[in-house]
């Protein structure tokens, strides 16, 4: 074996390697080219959105009656479904994380299924269950005169169906990894189980609870497939922002782009608020 020919190492690179250790950081060409294509593919469309944005008329485009209605509807339905998810999803996450019973794995699979299920299938399923002739809907209709499909309530239900699993898996993971020593300590201090949950468990997982809620809210805000299937698209009633964007693209492209920019801005804010959770370069937890 012989010594290979020396390559050039700059003083700066020498200092970097000395300080941080490790080998060369230069990227081999067979990896660099596909990586750049991937970056372009992900970033260029967003740049296109920014280039085509009617910057001068954004205010006007957004203040159109349909756009404003869609914005308001989206905000309150996403917020309501997040609240519902917190109220019923967090207890479910606790049950999944802290108890064991037969069929628990199956239950976990079922409640997280909407994560991978095409949303439109979720919409169809909701329609078949809660529709006017659905196996639950028919009783709601005949006993209480309640019709859910194509109402704002249907929007909230569709969004909750799709978004709540994000909250559940985030919170369940946090509950599993939380140090149960604190809960034991609370018990020896006289706290009953519900007090332990309220005063120890929830504060301990608060960061994950917040992240899960933001994620859930963002998913609800962007929901399209299940909503349009189960709730339709009546302006002011069930036409949320993503649906409004979809229809506006044909009739009023400027409004569509302006609404898209709003959604993009919201997404960036969500990402920044989740940075400690997601952008540390680690895994999703």
């Amino acid at each position, binding site marked *: 074996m012989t010594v290979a020919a020396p390559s050039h190492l700059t003083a700066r690179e020498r200092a970097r390697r000395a300080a941080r250790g490790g080998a060369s950081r230069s990227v081999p060409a067979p990896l660099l080219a596909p990586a750049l294509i991937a970056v372009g593919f992900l970033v260029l469309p967003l740049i296109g959105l920014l280039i085509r944005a009617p910057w001068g008329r954004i205010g006007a485009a957004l203040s159109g009656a349909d756009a404003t209605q869609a914005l308001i509807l989206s905000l309150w339905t996403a917020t309501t479904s997040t609240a519902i998810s917190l109220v019923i999803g967090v207890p479910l996450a606790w049950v999944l994380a802290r108890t064991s019973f037969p069929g628990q794995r199956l239950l976990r699979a079922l409640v997280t299924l909407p994560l991978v299920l095409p949303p439109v299938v979720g919409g169809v399923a909701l329609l078949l269950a809660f529709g006017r002739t659905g196996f639950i809907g028919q009783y709601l209709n005949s006993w209480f005169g309640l019709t859910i499909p194509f109402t704002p309530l249907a929007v909230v239900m569709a969004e909750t169906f799709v978004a709540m699993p994000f909250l559940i898996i985030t919170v369940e993971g946090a509950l599993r990894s939380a140090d149960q*020593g*604190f809960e*034991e*300590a*609370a*018990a*020896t*201090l*006289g*706290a*009953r*189980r519900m*007090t332990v949950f309220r*005063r*120890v468990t929830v*504060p*301990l997982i*608060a960061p994950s609870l917040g992240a899960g809620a933001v994620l859930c809210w963002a998913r609800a805000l962007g929901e399209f497939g299940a909503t349009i299937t189960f709730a339709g698209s009546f302006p002011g009633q069930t036409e949320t922002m993503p649906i409004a964007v979809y229809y506006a693209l044909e009739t009023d492209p400027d409004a569509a782009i302006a609404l898209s920019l709003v959604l993009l801005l919201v997404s960036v804010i969500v990402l920044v608020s989740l940075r400690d959770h997601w952008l540390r370069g680690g895994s999703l937890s």
Partner: protein
Amino acid sequence: MTRGDGDGLVFDAEVRRGGFTLAVGLTAACGEVLGLLGPNGAGKSTLLSAVAGLTPVSAGRITLAGQVLDDADAGAFVEASGRPVGFVFQNYRLFPYLTVAENVAFSPRARGQGRQEARSAASHWLDRLDLADLAGRKPGQLSGGQAQRVALARALAGQPELLLLDEPLSALDAGTRLDVQAELKRHLADFTGPCLLVTHDPLEALVLADRLLVLEGGRVAQEGTPAQIARQPATDYVAKLVGLNLYAGEADGGQVKLTGGGAFVVAGTGQHRDVLVALRPSAVVVSSQRPEPSSARNTWPAKISGLTLLADRVRLDLEGPPHALVDVTPAAVAELSLRPGSEVWLTAKATDLEVYPRGNSQAG
């Protein structure tokens, strides 16, 4: 083993956890600090956890002041939250998101006091443990010694009738440990109920405990006052802890034939046949030549297998028989040219050999 239901804690139970079984009978009187000493995995923490109600017992029962906390045969169990217990955990487990004052107010609040009452109970304990200045801090901003005091204040604020301390000083660095230890001793003296103190540090046990119970492999290996245990260790583990040589043997007149080979002339063996002999490492004299006959009755050749420097002395590990640990000065090591492999003569006076019956763990 039957025990009356006294005022204090009576634990007479088995706890099975996986393949490990803890089977212990003990009592701790009011105002008594009972030290639980033992190697890792001896079951010390399991015992505390059973007393606190974090682990149910598999057989037997636990009572406090005559009231049942856990009774496997009757199926009675008081949940942890319903036991008048104060628990200071090994790493304190202070709630990181609460201030010191809120941590201390946690127990009064959880035990049903109003917000205002709980706060004033907390400030009472903060004053008492000299923590008033730290009331607004979060646990992350405390030093180890401060966190230890907060943990104690939090446990005491619930007005427990029984105090459990799991290695309360082990998280501290050596520098602060002695100060905190002295302080802890003062606070334990003020506590009127029974107190169980788990430790694996013999010095901590000797200083803080009124009585010691040595656990090994889930069983009581020895029970007695710190003085008794320091003088007459019952097992090799305890002998090592208190720094004595320990030999098992058979008494025969003024002699003890040692199980591991060799024999000692002793001052008196009493009526017992199976005995233990304890010998202080500093009571043995090392000579490079066979010593002249003297009043010291035990002389035997040995070979040095190891030397360890301990502060101001050197501990020699010697192969006998009988084997021995012997302490000499560094100067003696130099003058006698002691090194691994050296052949030396050891001498011990019969009166320096502590002889006591074996198999009697001074259970009381």
